[in-house]
Each structure stands twice: as structure tokens, then as C-alpha cells.
């Protein structure tokens, strides 16, 4: 046990914790927007897979990581659009359509992968960039300011999302539509448009979350490589009380425990590896049950909107 508490190991845990939080942050911040407007998108995981595949394929064929990223975002957008049509316009049960979207994403990404790539290949993904000056600070520079672009992007997204939600006219509409769409409608707010926008934004961010796996974290594509990360992202939104800073807290907690668990395995400490792998999930469940009570969820979450109802 003692070998876990040496300085290099602790620094290593923090470093990988930050790295591992990246996909969760993109996906969960995107989902926060959708849920704040009243749409529960359970299809995040499927969208991430499509993003991961498309990003990887485009980057592979063009040799350009940024084009890969763009491809991932586009795939996410299309998936988001599909979800909007089904759940907002056609008013299908949101939980069910989300699960459908998931299966669709899983199936399609697997199929495309088998048809276009076949075997597992790896790619040289986004490399760490050391931030000038800040990156030179002993220890801190190494942990916080020597990451790849997508990590920086994920962490900048948090204050940005917070600002958009709380300080812009769009953010105000999103919050209102998620709480009381009838009221927003009577003030001339286009409820459908707002929900399309947030679900599509959530799709784009989930696509990028997938690309952060295939182009930065793991640098390859594999069938079902997300293995449920999208669902954790949905859980993090609840955990974070539908607020970006709360989501950040949840994502960090989850990935630190995950990083710790990985080191436990690397160091060969005497804990059965299955238990170690379960740790972050068990923690999430505990944290969710503890936090569930005080958070106030958007009142119109999962409820389709119809004009003129009492």
C-alpha cells in the first residue's frame, strides 16, 4: 500500500485523472444543455461511438487530426438531429428513444468499422502541448499544463458553458424551457427550436467526446470502445445538479478514482482487479444516491411540449 503514496505516483494519478476526465466533460456538459432544456438524451454513448469512429476514420484517411475532429462533431450533430426529430417533434418517449439511439450508434459504428477498416490500427493522435511559462512551474506545470489540446478544451468548456447558461439570452431561454415550456411559449420563445439546438449541441459535444478517445486518449478505434462512458456522463449531469461546475466536480472525482484504480493494478497491489475496476462505478452510485435528494431537476425534463394545455 505504501508505494501508492510516493510523490511520483500521486502526481501520476492526478495527471491521468485530469486526462481521463476529458471525454466525460465534453459529453456531460453537452448533456447538461439538453437536460436543462427538458430533454433527457440517453443516447450519449451511441453518439460517442459514432464520433469516435468518424473522427478516427477521417483522421486516418486525410492524415489531419482537425478534420477528424470536425468529422466527429458532424457525426454527433447528425445523431443529435435524429434524437431531436424523434423526441421533440415526434414526441416519442425520451428514455426509449435514447436507448434506441444508443443501439443504433453501437451497431452502425461497429458495422462501418468492419467494412472500412477491418482490423485494429492505431494512429498518432493529439500530442501534449506544454503551455509557455505556466508549464515550467515545478510539479504543477507537469500536471496541469502539459496536456493535449482536447484536454484544455474540455476544461475551458466548463466556465464557458456556465457563462452561456447563466448570462446569455439563449441560456435564459434554455433554463425557462426546461422548467416551464408553456410559460416560455407564451412569451414568444420557440420551445422546439431551443430544444433542437441544445440536443444538437449535446450531440456535437458527445461526438467530440468520442473523438477525444480515439484521437487523443487511446488513439485507436475498437468496437464498443466507450463501454458505457456515455451513461456515466448522464449520471454526472444528475450528480452535478445540472450545473457545469457540479459536472466538473463529478467528472474529476470519478476519473481520479479511476486513475487510482489503474495505478493500483499497475503496482500489483493485493486487491482483486475486478473489485478495483468496479470502484469508480460503485462510487458513482453512492454519490448519486447521496446527491440525488438536494438537486432540483428541470421540472419539464422528459416531458414533450404541446401548446395550449392547461
Amino acid at each position, binding site marked *: 500500500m505504501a508505494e501508492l503514496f510516493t510523490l511520483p505516483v500521486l502526481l501520476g494519478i492526478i495527471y491521468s485523472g485530469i486526462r481521463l476526465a476529458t471525454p466525460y466533460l465534453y459529453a456531460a456538459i453537452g448533456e447538461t444543455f439538453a437536460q436543462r432544456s427538458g430533454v433527457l438524451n440517453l443516447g450519449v454513448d451511441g453518439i460517442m461511438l459514432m464520433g469516435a469512429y468518424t473522427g478516427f476514420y477521417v483522421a486516418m484517411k486525410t492524415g489531419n487530426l482537425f478534420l477528424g475532429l470536425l468529422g466527429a462533431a458532424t457525426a454527433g450533430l447528425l445523431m443529435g438531429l435524429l434524437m431531436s426529430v424523434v423526441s421533440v417533434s415526434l414526441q416519442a418517449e425520451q428514455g426509449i428513444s435514447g436507448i434506441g439511439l444508443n443501439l443504433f450508434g453501437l451497431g452502425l459504428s461497429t458495422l462501418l468499422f468492419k467494412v472500412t477498416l477491418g482490423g485494429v490500427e492505431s494512429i498518432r493522435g493529439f500530442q501534449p502541448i506544454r503551455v509557455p511559462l505556466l508549464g515550467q512551474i515545478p510539479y504543477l506545470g507537469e500536471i496541469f499544463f502539459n496536456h493535449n489540446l482536447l484536454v484544455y478544451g474540455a476544461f475551458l468548456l466548463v466556465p464557458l458553458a456556465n457563462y452561456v447558461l447563466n*448570462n*446569455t*439570452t*439563449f*441560456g*435564459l*431561454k434554455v*433554463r*425557462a424551457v426546461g*422548467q*416551464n415550456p*408553456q*410559460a*416560455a*411559449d*407564451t*412569451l*414568444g*420563445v420557440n420551445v422546439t427550436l431551443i430544444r433542437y439546438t441544445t440536443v444538437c449541441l449535446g450531440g456535437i459535444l458527445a461526438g467530440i467526446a468520442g473523438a477525444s478517445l480515439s484521437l487523443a486518449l487511446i488513439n485507436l478505434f475498437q468496437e464498443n470502445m466507450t463501454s458505457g462512458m456515455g451513461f456515466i456522463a448522464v449520471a454526472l449531469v444528475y450528480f452535478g445538479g445540472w450545473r457545469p461546475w457540479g459536472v466538473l466536480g463529478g467528472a474529476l472525482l470519478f476519473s481520479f478514482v479511476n486513475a487510482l484504480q489503474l495505478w493500483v493494478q499497475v503496482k500489483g497491489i493485493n486487491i482483486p482487479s475486478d473489485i478495483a475496476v468496479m470502484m469508480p462505478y460503485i462510487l458513482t452510485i453512492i454519490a448519486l444516491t447521496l446527491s440525488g435528494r438536494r438537486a*432540483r431537476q428541470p*421540472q419539464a425534463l422528459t416531458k414533450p411540449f404541446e*401548446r*395550449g*394545455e*392547461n
Partner: protein
Amino acid sequence: MSDLLPTGHKKIEEMRMEGIVKRFPGVLANDHVNFDVKAGEIHALLGENGAGKSTLVRQLYGLYRPDEGKIFINGEEVVFHSPKDSIAAGVGMIHQHFMLVPDLTVVENVALGLPSSRGVILDLDRVRKRIELLCQQYNLKVDPYAYIWQLSVGEQQRVEILKALYRGAALLVLDEPTAVLTPQEVDDLFITLRRMADEGHALIFISHKLHEVLAISQRVTVLRDGRVVGTRPTAGATKTELAQMMVGRPVILQYEKSPLKMGDILLKVENLVVRGDRGTDALKGVSLEVHSGEILGLAGVSGNGQRELAEALAGLRPVKSGRIILNGVDVTHASPSVRIATGQSYIPEERMKDGAIKDFSVADNFILEDHAKPPFSSRTFLNFRSIRQVSERLVQEFNVKTPTIDTPIKNLSGGNIQKMILARELSRKPKVLIASQPTRGVDIGASEYIHQRLLEQRQAGTATLLISEDLDEIRALSDRIAVIYEGEIVGIVDGKTATTEELGLMMAGIREKPKA
């Protein structure tokens, strides 16, 4: 005279609706309705529940499109596709159910959907300044940074008025604005409305309370079954005449009460302490006894613990300390179903939330409580024939306006949903009845009917706790009147001798003088 309002927006000199027809599945909600209002005028709209009042004004606000007919503003025809269009034309509306976002502040609710002076970034400070100016101009009082959920109903309504004024409403529609207000709040509202009319706004005022209509309006239009019965100048109109126009027959405004036959105590509340939503004690040791054959009225300004008491009695809110004895059984911590089985009926104040399931049909809502008992079911199977029979009968008896008993209740008018719940609760022949604001939002004909049913139940031996803010209702029905103030019973007086002044003082927390 200037053609601008103090808000800087243009007046609407005249709004006219001509030949408006609106159909819903199975209902002709508006049948060739003509209606108009002019700048500086308050035009009242009267009619029974389901007469088509809300439907008419919703078309003026762009929420529904008329099937036939035209709308003119200042002589020019207008077509509204959504509220956005009507707001742009200077129409504002206070809805029958408030349209506010509880988790947002007053300023945010006002700013919602409006362009900001800073582009995409909110400029709430500027909005606040304009709100404060409007508050001054129209004699309104609201804290701009309060959250809506922190406000009283009266304050929330002021926010609704502010929202409309801020958007430059020259014509304001108020759909039953007084249904949930205390008498003091109604007075304040009327001061604001008169000022608006004086400044040149045009106002449409919907209410079931005839004395309000007589006090505030210049003209009255009465609707019945979607058709206009007539339009009259208010000066010279009487309550009896208007009531007859609405209902189509003479209406009793005074009741005959049989002598009191007080029996055993059926409901006993001892030292009840209950927490409110904010975490503080909403009831601070309330004790009450209701006897068989008696109506005990509970008067008080809303927000003094009435809702918490009703919910605790219904089993919907946990009791911190004290006891509730129902028909001799201690039910302090019992579930609602135990209380229902012990013979208690409950008419909740928030009928949409606590009393009915919006997407269920009328018939299904009727059997919510008793679906597992004969005649509605036997040996786990529902008996649809008797469910239909009973539902048809109740709809008839209580005059619930609905196309069929299979219509989902969300398509019924506000007052008819209430009648549906009343029909269910009263037809169960309860031993104890908790009735919370039973006639709020219900039309005169139905109020009369409900009051008579309550009196019939009383004669049959039911113990009734009648919670109401309407002092006339309390005085007309109650044998004894308890007054609640800040979670405590200020005093209990005899229903026959109590005066409005005496009750008013007690409602303000001033205790009964000790009897000499």
C-alpha cells in the same frame, strides 16, 4: 389626447373580434362570437365553466387559431400565428394558470424571450431599472431579484402584469386574475387596473365573481355554451340579472340551512405541528374538533398554514408532532389509502396537481380511489359497465361539461376539472370531508350546487372541515368558524353570530376579546 401610453408604446384604440368560431373535438367552444374593447375601457367577460371564455381570449393571444372569424386592431385585420405576433401587436395576457418559471428571478422572468441591449449577453441591470420605473408608474410593488417561488400569489400576479407592460401591452387580458387572490390583494389589483385604464390601456377582465365585475368594469359580455348572450353597460346591471344571463335560469344566492344536529367527534386534531416547504414550522400546535353533522369553517389569509393542515390531514405531508384521530382511529402517520378507507374524502386546493391525473379520462379519474371496490371491480377485474354507468350519472348530476366520459381531463375547462373532482369526492358519501377552497374558479351555478351538496352531506351526518378564503362562503355554510393566523388558531366563533369585521380582525392575528 396623446396616442402614446406611459410605457412609450402606442395605444390600441379599438380591438374587435368578429364572428369567431372555434371547434374542438366534440365541442363548439366559440360560436360566432362578436366582442370588442376600447382604449380606456375595462370590458368584463362572464360565463359558466366551459362557456368558452379562455378559448376566446387565447385566440386573441395567438395560442389558438380561429376556425372562422376575424380580429381587427384599430380597424385593420390582424392574424396571429403565435404569441410572438400578438405581443408585437400590443396584446398582453395574464393566464388562468400563471405562466412563470419558479426557479428564475423576477427580472429573468421579465427578460425571457426579449432581445438584450448587449446582443446575446443578458443585460439584467437595465431590465431591473425599467421594471422599477414601471412599478412606480403603475403602483406595483415587487422585489426584482426575488425568485418566483419565494413570492406570494399576489406578488406573482404583479410579475405577470409587469411582463405584459414591459412588452408594451396596450391591451391586457386578465383570465380569472382574482381566483387565487386574498380580498386585500384584489383591492390592490383593482387600483392598478383602474390606473391602467385611466392611462389609456384597454382591458379584458374575466371573473366568476359578480361583485368584482360590477365594481371594475364599464361593460359586461356574457357567454353561454360558446355564444354571446348579450353585452350590457355595467352601470344599471344587477347581480341577479347577470347570474340569470349566465346560467339561463334564476340562481339562489342565499341558502336555507337546516338546524344543527351535532353528533360525535369524527375528526380530532391535537397539537399538530407540521413543517412547511421552507423548512420552518407551518403549523405550530393546531387543535380542532369536527363533529358529525357539522361544518367547521377555517378562515384565514392564504399562506397561514391552511394548505399544510389540509395536506397533513390527507396524509400527504408528514406530521412532526401531535395527533390526528379520524373516526376514533389514530391516523397521524397513516397513508392516504388508510384514511380513504376510514371514510375520509379530500378536495385538494391544487386540483390539477393533487386531485386528478391530467392524461386520464374523466371516467378513469372518477374511480381513482375506489377502483378496487365494488361496483367498479370484482375479484381484481374492472367492471367497465358499472364504471361507465356511474361516470355518466356523475357527469349529469354535477353538470360536468365534457364531450364524453372518455375525454382526457386536460381538455376540460378549468372549472369543469374541479367539478369532476368534487363529484368524485362527494359521491363517496364520506364520514369526514376536508374541502379546500371547493368553489375556487367554479361558476355561480356550480358554486350554488356545491354549496347545496355540502349542506346535504351535513344533514346526512358528515363532519366537514371547510377551508376557504371566501368569507361569504364560510359565513353562509359554517356552524362554527375557526380562524388561522401564522400556523395557530386565533379563535373559534359561532357561525351564526360572527361578523365580517370580527373575522377580519382575527385574520390579521388579533385575538378574540376574552368574553366578559
